[in-house]
């Protein structure tokens, strides 16, 4: 069994390194390039400027050109990578001069940094998590779960293909989830704080952690143990925050500037077509005509909170482990569907808990995971990653079938029926995208159809997840 886990880990690594051979976002497309250049630019900024200047606009730091808009842990990570890059070739990160730098060696270096994060954080975190699941539920499904979590194409295509470091924030969050399953509340709070400080998008997962840990504190028998536990958790979170934010805590203005960078209201409710409610509503009712950006932001926050509230209140009252995973799934979906400034890639935050839910609802979750990749197809097509995206999704499905061949598809004929319909729909749309060019009047027709169809699926899954949590049979 151990050797098979090892084989799976290396297979995951192999697929990641093979996807790395493909193109990345913004390759050969000046002047702005893409996420690859953004990450490189952050290395340039952090290596060459003082810590205090990282988030502020200056002649050396043009925030309009991929200004740093992730929390401090990302900035420190960029700094470390920048130092390593500089030691390989100073031209990688030379201030101003290195903009848009690309070469074979540089690509290899950048790809290697992502793979390094996979090896050091993401894959070990998944191993730890699947072992924790088996321990918490006294089951033996680690190989199945690890195989599918490690082979999930969405994360691989975005991190190792498109180019990002979601593996770090997702990996840290996975450790935090595992710690919750093992009842290690303090470890969980620490790792979740790290995740949150790597990517603010981890807020999508924050409510269930908050509800669960708060519930654990309130659930204490005496007031003193309540106070002890809550202050300990608060201390861990606050101290971690304080250490990471230290350089900007000198003045309120500096800290606010960082916060302002992290939550850019001015960028609008969505950028590209994205499979959430607002993008779908926008088709029939142009949001920008009727609402100001600030108003829109408030509407989004309100809707998100309303959507996320039931699942978290329930979690606060009934703290089961399955319920926790479901709440993570529901909350992440609520954020994805209703919040402000959503990217296609953030569906990965809902995909993470759904990978763990494969243990209970394999047939449902595999559809969700495939739809999640489908929803990112417009983005991946832009990066010339369509072929690997399709191939890896089909392969993922086959791997799933391998493990799930004996499992119960018993009396769930209706589910089978539905899943067939959605598969056929997705396949037809992919076929159409590949063969029929969009009409010139509606150049965004295909991305829009993909988004709306995915959005419909996500909404159904959101309702399904809430229903499952409220009628949950598993402890």
């Amino acid at each position, binding site marked *: 069994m151990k050797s098979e886990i090892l*084989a*799976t880990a290396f*297979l995951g690594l*192999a697929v990641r*390194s093979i996807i790395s*051979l493909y193109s990345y976002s913004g390759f050969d497309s000046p002047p702005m390039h893409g996420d690859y250049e953004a990450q490189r630019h952050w290395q340039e900024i952090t290596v060459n400027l003082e810590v205090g200047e990282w988030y502020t606009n200056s002649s050396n730091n043009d925030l309009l050109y991929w200004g740093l808009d992730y929390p401090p842990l990302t900035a420190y990570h960029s700094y470390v990578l920048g130092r390593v890059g500089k030691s390989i070739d100073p031209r990688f990160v030379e201030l101003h001069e290195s903009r848009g730098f690309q070469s*074979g060696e540089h690509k290899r270096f950048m790809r290697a940094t992502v793979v390094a994060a996979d090896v050091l954080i993401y894959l070990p975190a998944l191993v730890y998590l699947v072992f924790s699941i088996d321990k918490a539920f006294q089951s033996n499904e680690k190989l199945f779960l690890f195989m599918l979590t490690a082979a999930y194409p969405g994360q691989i295509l975005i991190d190792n293909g498109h180019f990002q470091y979601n593996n770090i924030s997702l990996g840290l969050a996975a450790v935090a989830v595992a710690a919750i399953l093992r009842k290690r509340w303090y470890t969980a709070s620490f790792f979740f704080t790290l995740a949150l400080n790597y990517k603010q998008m981890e807020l999508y997962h924050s409510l269930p952690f908050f509800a669960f840990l708060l519930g654990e504190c309130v659930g204490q028998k005496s007031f003193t143990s309540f106070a002890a536990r809550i202050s300990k958790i608060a201390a861990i979170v606050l101290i971690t925050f304080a250490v990471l934010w230290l350089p900007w805590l000198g003045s309120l203005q500096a800290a606010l500037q960082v916060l302002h960078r992290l939550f850019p209201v001015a960028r609008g409710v969505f950028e590209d077509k994205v499979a959430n409610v607002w993008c779908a509503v926008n088709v029939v009712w142009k949001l920008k005509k009727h609402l100001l950006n600030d108003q829109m932001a408030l509407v989004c926050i309100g809707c998100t909170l309303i959507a996320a509230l039931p699942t978290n209140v329930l979690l606060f009252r009934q703290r089961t482990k399955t319920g926790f995973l479901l709440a993570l799934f529901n909350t992440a979906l609520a954020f994805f569907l209703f919040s402000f400034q959503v990217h296609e890639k953030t569906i990965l935050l809902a995909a993470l808990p759904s990978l763990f839910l494969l243990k209970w609802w394999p047939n449902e979750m595999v559809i969700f995971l495939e739809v999640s990749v489908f929803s990112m197809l417009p983005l991946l097509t832009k990066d010339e990653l369509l072929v690997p995206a399709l*191939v890896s999704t089909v392969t993922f499905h*086959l791997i799933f079938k391998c493990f799930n061949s004996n499992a119960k598809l018993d009396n769930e004929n209706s589910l089978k029926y539905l899943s067939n319909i959605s598969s056929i729909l997705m396949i037809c749309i992919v076929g159409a995208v590949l063969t029929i060019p969009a009409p010139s009047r509606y150049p965004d027709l295909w991305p829009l159809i993909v988004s709306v169809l995915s959005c419909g699926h996500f909404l159904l899954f959101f309702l399904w997840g809430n229903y499952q949590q409220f009628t949950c049979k598993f402890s």
Partner: protein
Amino acid sequence: MKDLFWHLVGIATGLKILLIPAYHSTDFEVHRNWLAITHSLPLERWYVEATSEWTLDYPPFFAHFEWVLSQVAKYVDPRMLEVQNLNYESKGTVYFQRLSVIATDLVYVLGVRSCLGSLGLARGTQQHFAGSMLLLLNVGLLFVDHIHFQYNGFLFGILLLSIGALIRQRFLWSAFAFAVLLNFKHIFLYLAPAFGVYLLRFYCLEQTSVLSMASAFVKLLAVGLTPFAMSFGPFWQQLPQVLSRLFPFKRGLTHAYWAPNFWALYNTADKVAAGVLKVQDSGTSTTSGLVQEVRHTVLPPITPPVTFVLTVVFMLPILVKLFRSSKNQSPLVFLRAVVLCGCSSFVFGWHVHEKAILMVLIPLCLLTLVNREDARYAYILGIAGYFSLFPLLFDADLYIPRYSLYMSYVAMLYGQLYRIFPGFRGFHALEWLYMLGFLAIPLYEHLLAFLLHLDKRLPFLPLLLTSVYSALGVLYFFGAFYLYALGFTWGKVALSGPSCSSAVKRKRKTK
């Protein structure tokens, strides 16, 4: 357990398609050139044409195979079919050639299916699953065919079909398939003795009367020679020219990169001796990548006849054993004979390529499934053999893929062995030490060499280390497995495969 064979075929195909943009070697251009030659020149020019240095040097069936491919290629990108258009690799060309390898792997898939069936492994068992994994996801074929670029998949497919037919006792089909194979790629001649002896002994001599023996022999000969006639017939006027292309003895004893065989150790010993005895090197050097000719300074020089005699001599014992084995043991002994014939030629052959180790490793996968002791040896050779392919994938972008694919495969192999043979262990401390020693080579190549500043001074040392260290394992396997196959054991009782023969019998009954 459900039959997951076709799932695995799909997964393997997915992995292969993902590898399309990976680095490919000059063999890519070799095959593009052959596409161009066969498409745009008349038959009689195929083996004469020499615009590109990569002249056609495979037998005629392979040339015809390229011609068939070119009939599709012209719709993809006709420019790849121009003989003068050297080193042409448009996106269409890359996709076409890569996909042609993947598509023709279907023959391999059928061969695997047939062989697993012939061994009596029922579908849906752990053994059948393990066999499908080992063969369909074979990391050696991934390296050589789908990264480096060659068409070994469908050739091994024909080999497996032939082996499968032989074990099912469809002797004439087996002979026919093997003869066809030889006309695709003549390197499989090295395995011919095992087939020849088996067919002679268990097909011809098994007959009851002299007359039927003679008729069986004539039938065998007819079936075996027909493919040769079909293949070489159209070229009979220029046969010497064709043969000189197929057997270029002008090349040296060892390839530029030394395949991990006896001669790698011989060359190294010569180098070391020359260094110790302070003998002046007379000009050419064996380690230089450009020089094909090897000149030994201390040890006696080696000529092609020497390698040929050694190869044949080392094939004889297992062939005798095969000839004298009992009928129900014979499939197992036959498989071992195939492996050992392949291994003899790999160890002692003239100008052996590192890729040729696949001729040992692929048949060995079959033995791995049916016998615990064979599996043990197979594992050791697997560790060394697949590792020795790394120099083919020298592109820096491939470092992580090659190590992770390799590690994944050998770990998966171990896991499967553990499942088929509960409590599978059985490596001596020394064997473990040897296998773990392979970790040191990448460590040196990617880290120590730079720390010690040896990377510029001794650029070939990692290659030399890989070659020599793998050669130790190959030779150890060759010796130990040979003795085991002949029935000699050290203290331990040989597990002479009852599982296989009974399985074969069971299969026959159900048929």
